């Protein structure tokens, strides 16, 4: 068991050690300083010229968001068409069929918004063409979209007063060429040499040692698995995601994949400190996020290592922890650690089946997604945290009786309204849709749909309720993991899930960018004695308290009905 604990400690330390230099590099890239990747600038200049982008031209916050939304709409249409007709297109050695319309709706949105919820299974639901041209493509560009919007926020915070948040096209292109593509290439090659497939061969048929005939799905998976983690996307090549022995062949690849998904979100925090010249602010944010992560991660790892009390009662040895839904080569500690990292970071890839986790772990996983800003997804993590900061600034302002200020700008009614709206929206989407699903389950259990509500749960009782709550928490947080027992490939779940995902993506991006755009346009007020210092630990703790209070008020009731009731019932 000890080597499992050292495994997760090492995974975290390696992440931080890599994130520090990466953060420094990222800050240089966006500041336009010299870096060792400058050999790529001819390629970037060619792209700008070909696309008629003037890289020197800045954008105000409205134009920035318009550009972002336009290209996202285009990607949505593109993905929709390709998935709908994939069965008739080339690169389909396994002869997988076209995607049905409701599933296409869900899948196209899911990958566009960096959620990567998969109501299909990778082996049968998509073709090599759509895996590469839709899924891998969107995994790259959706991560770059999130990061670009965060950089716009950095630009707003950096200057005293400015109307220029940077050029969306330029920031997007640099994110692709300087950060995501080089890192993904390195990671894919490491995966390939550890046994992840990368060739275009279709399924193989094999007669096993015992004489059974089975098939083995393969394909050009390594590249997608690299960006799925680096871009905090999470959608797997295979149905079982990173529990699959070809997607995550050994403990080294497990450390690689868990490090990769945390790397960019943490590096972006360090980059922020350098870029906006407020290092202490970045360290305080990182510290608070780390404390939050530990609060969720430690109980999870402990309960997974202890094993399932119900199985203990049967008298079986659980020396290797709760093994249902887990892989022997990864073990309960690395599975528990991963399940929290993947839920706080909005990756949503899994290396164990969350539906079979202990109730405490399920609770912590859901809390991670409800808060959605302890590190958080590529770019969007800090954007979510910024909303909490604005609310904390507002409350602190009320408490000390001064007009609230954030980094030299007055925070007024409009900004606070946007922040409150974004916060309340999540609670409304998660609880509203879960209530709707539960209503159909109870009152129209035999409704004549593709899957009858009575049959969409894989587990009875409190855990069944958790399956529905988890699904909407995951879609709203753009996480993409699931309590996969839920039969979600049918019109009800595909459509409601698709709506929750799109609401959970764009408003939480537009909100913070708009807030910073508005703030940056205001007159700069120099710091004085009475200024609320947002880079102090006191304010960090204040933000943490705001997060806890908002989360508890919003989600305590449904959590009691799900994982908490299950826990109490079990013990």
């Amino acid at each position, binding site marked *: 068991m000890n080597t499992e604990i050292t*495994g997760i400690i*090492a995974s975290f330390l390696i992440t931080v050690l890599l994130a520090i230099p990466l953060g420094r590099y990222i800050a240089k890239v966006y500041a336009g300083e010299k870096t060792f990747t400058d050999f790529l600038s001819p390629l970037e200049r060619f792209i700008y010229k070909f*696309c008629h982008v003037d890289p020197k031209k800045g954008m105000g916050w409205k134009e920035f968001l*318009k550009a972002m939304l336009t290209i996202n709409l*285009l990607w949505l249409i*593109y993905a929709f068409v390709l998935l709908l007709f994939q069965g008739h297109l080339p690169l389909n050695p396994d002869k997988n069929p076209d995607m049905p319309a409701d599933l296409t709706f869900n899948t196209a949105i899911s990958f566009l918004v960096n959620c990567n919820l998969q109501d299909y299974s990778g*082996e*049968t639901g998509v073709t090599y063409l759509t895996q590469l041209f839709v899924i891998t493509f969107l995994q*790259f560009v959706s991560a770059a979209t999130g990061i670009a919007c965060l950089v716009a926020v950095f630009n707003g915070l950096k200057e005293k007063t400015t109307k220029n948040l940077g050029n969306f*096209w330029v920031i997007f292109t640099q994110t*692709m060429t300087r950060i995501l*593509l080089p890192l993904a*290439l390195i990671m894919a*090659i490491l995966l*390939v*040499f550890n*046994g992840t*497939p*990368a*060739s275009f061969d279709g399924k*193989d048929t*094999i*007669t096993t*040692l015992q004489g*059974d005939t*089975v*098939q*083995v799905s393969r394909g050009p998976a*390594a*590249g997608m698995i690299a960006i799925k983690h680096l871009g905090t996307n999470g959608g797997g090549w*295979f*149905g*079982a995601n990173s*529990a*699959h*022995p*070809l997607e995550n062949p050994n*403990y080294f690849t497990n450390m690689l994949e868990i490090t990769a998904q945390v790397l960019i979100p943490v590096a972006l925090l360090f980059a922020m400190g350098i870029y906006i010249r407020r290092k202490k602010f970045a360290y305080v944010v990182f510290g608070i996020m780390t404390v939050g992560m530990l609060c969720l991660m430690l109980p999870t790892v402990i309960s997974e290592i202890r094993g*399932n009390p119900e199985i203990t009662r*049967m*008298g*079986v*040895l659980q*020396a*290797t*922890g*709760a*093994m249902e*839904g*887990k*892989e*022997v*080569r*990864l073990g309960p500690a690395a599975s528990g650690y991963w399940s929290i990292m993947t839920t706080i970071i909005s990756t949503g890839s899994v290396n164990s*089946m969350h*539906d*079979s986790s*202990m109730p405490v772990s399920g609770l912590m996983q859901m809390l991670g997604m409800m808060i959605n800003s302890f590190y958080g997804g590529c770019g969007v993590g800090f954007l979510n945290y910024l909303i909490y900061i604005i609310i904390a600034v507002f409350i602190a302002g009320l408490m000390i009786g001064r007009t609230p200020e954030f980094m030299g700008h007055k925070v007024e009614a409009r900004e606070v309204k946007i922040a409150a709206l974004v916060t309340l929206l999540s609670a409304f989407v998660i609880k509203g849709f879960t209530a709707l699903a539960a209503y159909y389950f109870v009152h129209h259990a035999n409704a004549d749909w593709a899957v009858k509500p009575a049959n969409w749960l894989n*587990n009875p009782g409190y855990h069944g309720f958790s399956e529905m709550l988890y699904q909407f928490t995951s879609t709203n947080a753009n996480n993409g993991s699931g*309590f996969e027992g839920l039969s979600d490939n049918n019109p009800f779940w595909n459509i409601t899930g698709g709506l929750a995902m799109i609401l959970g993506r764009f408003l939480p991006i537009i909100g913070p960018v708009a807030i910073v755009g508005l703030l940056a346009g205001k007159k700069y007020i120099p710091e004085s004695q009475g200024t609320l210092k947002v880079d102090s630990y006191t304010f960090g703790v204040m933000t943490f308290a705001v997060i806890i209070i908002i989360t508890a008020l919003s989600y305590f009731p449904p959590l009691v009905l799900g994982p908490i009731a299950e826990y109490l019932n079990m013990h």
Partner: protein
Amino acid sequence: MKKHILVSLKLTAVFIIICSVIYPLVIAAVARLAPGGGRGQTLPVNGKAVGYANVGQKFDRDNYFWSRPSAVGYNAAGSGGSNKGPTNPDYLKDVQARIDSFLAHNPGVRKDQIPAELVTYSGSGLDPDLSPAGAKIQIPRIAAARHISEQTLRDLVDQHTEHPFVGMFGPSKVNVLQLNIALDNLK
């Protein structure tokens, strides 16, 4: 707005070529140098591939080391776990049935010696491994079925035990397919 659409179209085209054509082709080319050439590494017996090194297989005969129970029957055309919650009464009945079946096939084994992985589904349904304890508990059954000494089998399991990554990180494990190929070679 019109200008944004034009830029969007062209930028999308550029990055489709980079991310969906060049990127996977470069990786596929590099993968040819990797073991298995990027098609997955197979294990041969008498020159014929009997399986993939990393993908588990079903072993349920008494003269082989059993692999873990699987939700997909070890057919790697798909993958997945049971997704049963820890308190689901039907699930707990299934686990009890697997315990009973294991005890019936392994006389002399006590219930509290059975490692949990032998009576639970893995996450992928394709778990290629067992913990060393999960292999060793099966030794008396195999020794009786094959008329081999238990000591030989214990040595075999020890030989095939893979230790934590760089000696420090992660669990020890035994690859069941490799172990069973070696078991066949003992004769």
